[in-house]
């Protein structure tokens, strides 16, 4: 085990902090964009077989494109920097969020929907007040999966000039004859971010679904 250069880390603490914040920002923006696209799509296709198959298929194809290639493909259309990174990462997250949201929406018991309609809720009210809240656990499952993987893939953002911890690993480590200290630091920080964000989202889910943990069955 080669020695870790603590003095180097100390000297670059400010840089490392900036890259960590950038990494969080890229992840946050990507997830926001992914949700903004995936939720309306999921809602639109939830009750229709063919449109759902098409939407899920497109999202799956996006997911299978190698990340580096996806970022490179975006470059002709955007400047180098954060934009291609965020778009690419959001494209990755779509599949997980669309699929989980549709599963959640379809899991709302027919009798609950029927009773809600029978009380006089409009279709829109049924969606907003019944279906989406009840799908929340499934939606959160998708968001958590997507977030954890986005934190990891976001290290590739450095290649399109997006910044983040990828810069620490790539520019400061690999490109400098495999200088191990920044590579290890970047890896540990990325993993820690993933774990922390997942815990945060789990906590948010716990707070948002008090009904899911009550009951005596």
């Amino acid at each position, binding site marked *: 085990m080669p020695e870790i250069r603590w003095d180097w880390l100390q000297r670059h603490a400010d840089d490392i902090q900036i890259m960590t914040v950038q990494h969080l920002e890229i992840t946050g923006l990507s997830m926001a964009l992914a949700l903004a696209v995936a939720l309306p799509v999921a809602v639109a296709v939830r009750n229709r077989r063919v449109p759902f198959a098409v939407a899920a298929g497109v999202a799956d194809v996006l997911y299978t494109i190698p990340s580096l290639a996806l970022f490179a493909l975006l470059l002709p259309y955007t400047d180098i920097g954060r934009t291609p990174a965020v778009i690419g990462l959001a494209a990755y997250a779509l599949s997980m969020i669309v699929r989980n949201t549709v599963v959640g929406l379809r899991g709302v018991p027919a009798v609950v929907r029927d009773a809600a*309609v029978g*009380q*006089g809720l409009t279709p829109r009210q049924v969606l907003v007040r019944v279906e989406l809240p009840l799908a929340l656990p499934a939606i959160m499952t998708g968001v958590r999966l997507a977030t954890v993987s986005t934190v990891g893939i976001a290290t590739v953002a450095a290649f399109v000039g997006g910044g983040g911890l990828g810069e620490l690993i790539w520019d400061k480590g690999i490109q400098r004859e495999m200088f191990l200290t920044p590579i290890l630091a970047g890896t540990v920080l990325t993993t820690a971010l993933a774990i922390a964000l997942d815990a945060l989202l789990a906590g948010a889910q716990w707070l948002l679904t008090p009904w899911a943990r*009550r009951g*005596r069955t």
Partner: protein
Amino acid sequence: MPGTPATDAPPPGDVRAGTLELRGVTKRYGPTLAVDDLSLTVPAGKVCVLIGPSGCGKTTALRMINRLIEPTAGEILIDGTDVRRRPAARLRREIGYVIQQVGLLPHLTVAQNVATVPRLLGWAKARVGPRVDELLALVGLPPGDYARRYPAELSGGQQQRVGLARALAGDPPLMLMDEPFSAVDPITRERLQTDFLRLHRAVPKTVVFVSHDIDEAVKMADVIAVMRAGRLVQFAPPAELLADPADEFVADFVGADRALKGLALTRLEDLDLPPAPTVRRGEAGGDVRDRVASGTLVPIGGAVLATGDDGHPLRWVPVAAIGDRVEATPGRTEPLLSPVTTLRDALSALFEAGASHGVVVDGAGRAVAVADVATIGGGLAAPAEKAGDA
């Protein structure tokens, strides 16, 4: 009520019930006629039970009334107005809807579930809260204990009570109930039926109640509609249905023990029951003995019924055992009966408890009368009367 806005619920006692009329209503699914040319009228404030074997079109007929299903032909009128004249969601807010599987919203508390329709109707918050509490109390769920629970924390019977409260919350003139009590155990079902009847007495609504159980139909209905393969085969008050089934099919459906079923046509309130011989806990023994001597207090089997200050029965105490004051700790006074309990249910409750008489309590739980087996058996002579007034 001076100062109350005009949109408020009517003052208690005011009947808010609508006349329901079906005219030639038909629903076709491909080759299947689920409902075939159904015509009937339910007068305001009456309970109509739709009954028939599984698949005969009861649910389809019911769901066309609140437009969950659109008829292929025919028209449905509430107080003379075609239901299609209004947007479906608006219409449904004025029609209570209760189904067998209840369908409470699992992510909302009991109080939020009950508040659904008042909130859709745009009631002010200050009015919704008290209304929810009132309804929970009405269906026998003290709001203090239940308002903040989630549906998953309730038994099946309690969930159905919440379903009933939810359907009543907007004070709808019409209620649709699709086998509402079929999914609970027989004892709970009996209680729910009795409580519903008591509620219906207090707040009359026009009710269409789907059932596949003739005993339930006889107990609940002012008028019974028997359906077979989508068609109406008989539309008559329960006594008439029992006494004079229209054809072989109805006779079969009604069953052989028609005389016994007749016991379900009379309720304890229809009988001339002796008042409960009640004494208050703490009442002077001398006063009790004076009342017995003067004949204003008539002990049963030498015993009188001690009650708390609230009139709730505590236990039977022998007059001979009363000293200076009536002393009583809560004991066994079962079975407790309601004025709306049918003779059939009252008899079976007495037999089950192995008791010769039961205490009849009013809606507030106060002992009002005593019913014994002989008096109830005497009611067998009476049932035919009901045929006239329904």
